[in-house]
């Protein structure tokens, strides 16, 4: 498409869907079938009585593509609502990660010092390793994991982004 000259934006979308079989496959199939990006995707049930799940998707594209993504999502039959948290108002974004670090001696001390600075908690420890739990914006987690590399990073597990708008209104 000739629109590629337009700049790429990153958007966080909240999608409220019926919690029925196949709904996640529908959403993912839409992204792969139409060639859209998924930078992050999280999903969980948010209302048991209402059988509703909330999907948070971080995606990237030109403004025209982002608009397409929202409209394409909205047109899926089990989708109740689509909100663009990046476009609409100020919103909060958080991600949780578990970071495993291995090391002895000075490296252990350094790991704990970094954890303290990033307000990460120790949730598992052995004589030669730690698992930290850290919550925050994605770039904070990126930075934490990056710094841990020099100390002895083993692996990282991340939830992906969840997001919600500020203020009293629901999505």
């Amino acid at each position: 498409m000739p629109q590629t000259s337009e700049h790429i934006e990153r958007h966080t979308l909240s999608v409220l869907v019926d919690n029925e079989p196949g709904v996640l496959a529908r959403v993912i199939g839409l992204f792969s079938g139409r060639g859209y990006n998924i930078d992050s995707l999280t999903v969980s049930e948010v209302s048991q009585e209402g059988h509703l799940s909330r999907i948070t998707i971080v995606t990237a594209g030109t403004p025209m593509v982002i608009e397409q993504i929202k409209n394409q999502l909205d047109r899926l039959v089990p989708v109740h609502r689509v909100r663009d948290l990046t476009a609409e108002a100020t919103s909060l974004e958080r991600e949780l990660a578990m970071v495993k670090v291995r090391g002895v001696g000075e490296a252990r001390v350094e790991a704990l010092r970094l954890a303290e600075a990033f307000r990460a908690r120790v949730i598992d420890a052995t004589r030669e390793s730690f698992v930290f739990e850290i919550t925050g914006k994605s770039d904070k987690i990126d930075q934490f994991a990056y710094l841990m590399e020099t100390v002895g990073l083993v692996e990282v597990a991340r939830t992906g982004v969840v997001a919600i708008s500020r203020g009293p209104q629901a999505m």
Partner: protein
Amino acid sequence: MTKEMTGAEMVIQAFLDQGVEHIFGYPGGAVLPIYDALFHNNAIEHILVRHEQAAAHAAEGYARSSGKVGVLLVTSGPGATNAVTGLADALMDSIPLVCISGQVATHLIGNDAFQECDTVGITRPCTKHNYLVRDVNDLARVLHEAFYVAQNGRPGPVVVDIPKDVQFATGTYIGRDNIQHKTYRPKLDAEAEKIAAAVDLIASAKKPIFYTGGGVINSGPEASRLLREFARLTGVPVTSTLMGLGAFPAANRQWLGMLGMHGTYEANLAMHDCDVMVCIGARFDDRITGRLDAFSPGSTKIHIDIDPSSINKNVKVDLPIVGDCGRVLGALVDAWKGRGLKIDQGALDAWWGQIDRWRGRNCLAYRYSDTIIKPQYAIQRLYEATKDKDVYITTEVGQHQMWAAQFFHFEEPNRWLTSGGLGTMGYGLPAAIGAQKAHPGSLVVDIAGEASIQMNMQEMSTAVQFDLPVKVFILNNKYMGMVRQWQELLHGGRYSHSYSETLPDFVKLAEAYGGVGIRCDKPGDLDAAIQEMINVRKPVIFDCIVDQQENCFPMIPSGRAHNEMLLSDSAEDLDSAITDEGKMLV
């Protein structure tokens, strides 16, 4: 109404409650309980096709010619996979279908059981929505929802996959009145400000055009009526996509013919030069726009569509209006009349003057021959012989389809059934069978190519069994003509595998099926032969031997702009017609 019954009985009961009179299907192990329930029923007629793809296309032909939902019934595994092409076709062309498929019993799902396939997984991207029903007590709701989803909003195919144990199980049936989909509520009416802004733009236009599509037809006959009224009130020229032919009468002076890759010179140049474009129920598809960055560069664009995702997909528009074409056209007519608006008549006259000069190029002209039948001539004669009759036209895919669109003229909606979005060879004969079932007394003709017709040839047998006197009018050029034309354009005339070798004798073939075969290869014999075809009350295959070399013009080569169209007299430049970039496009 609530009642205890089996799942299989619920399927039949839901059909009855939804007003279904005809279904197209093919039996198999996983749908036998439903076939058993059909056995006891006289209100619904089942048309046994010879291939499940044909069941889907027949249901499409039925739906498009009647405005009702088309219904098909197939078995699990190969039954469902065979139907996939038809489902994808219906999705692309926004045709309302409900497809009931059998599935292996719930406890076997996932075990690679005999004739198991992941039907909802396979059909997810080629349906509007689909369901796997695991509990018989959900079945009635799902069935009614399926009909609701198929026909509301932008129409499309819906699959309901029913495991065999659910068909046998007994549960509670609820009637359609108790069902409304939880969330799916398409927006039908436009905001008043948008209507006001649209009529203001049209009233101030100097070179306006209405560009209409299949959405006008899908919206129902009232939308076509309102389009005519709005065009009459404003005097604006009208063109249409392949899908929209018939919504505006071809005999009307304001009709410019079809636009797009094989559209008329006047329609495409008017699109290119217009200052206000009103797109009504069309989607700026690549066959229409040509090179996107050169598409109608100077115009202000209004886009009316029921599907918000069609808006700003390919072309950025200035005034998007989300709503049903018929309702929006109604609001536009009311606003125009209510405010007593008038278009700038002087400017409009000048615009028509320009359009008439373009028309003067006579872009559909071809060289007549009295020794060999030109395909365009064959369509013209077919049109002349049938235009005063109650006629429905279906097509296959290829040059013949484009010539049919150019040379057969439609005065009413729902008369022209062609595979536009997916371009499915093999569509025409089963679609004709569906249309004939919906309109038993009408003349239904499939304008075919000798290659396409062989893709669902077996349906002649269906036509004969159910006494459906469809006419297959083959423009036999012994080539996959459209492929040959592209090879001529893009690949130095190297006709790789596009010659139709070892063709069957279509006359004998028709007779073998129990139909009637007619062959004609002389222009002078054509009228009488067509008359003979029309007069037979049986399925007919008409083998019309035409010029093998003819190409379809005008043509906007891929990657070119509307004003870079090729006309037949410029055919010598074909080699240089396509840029390297254009060769990448289909």
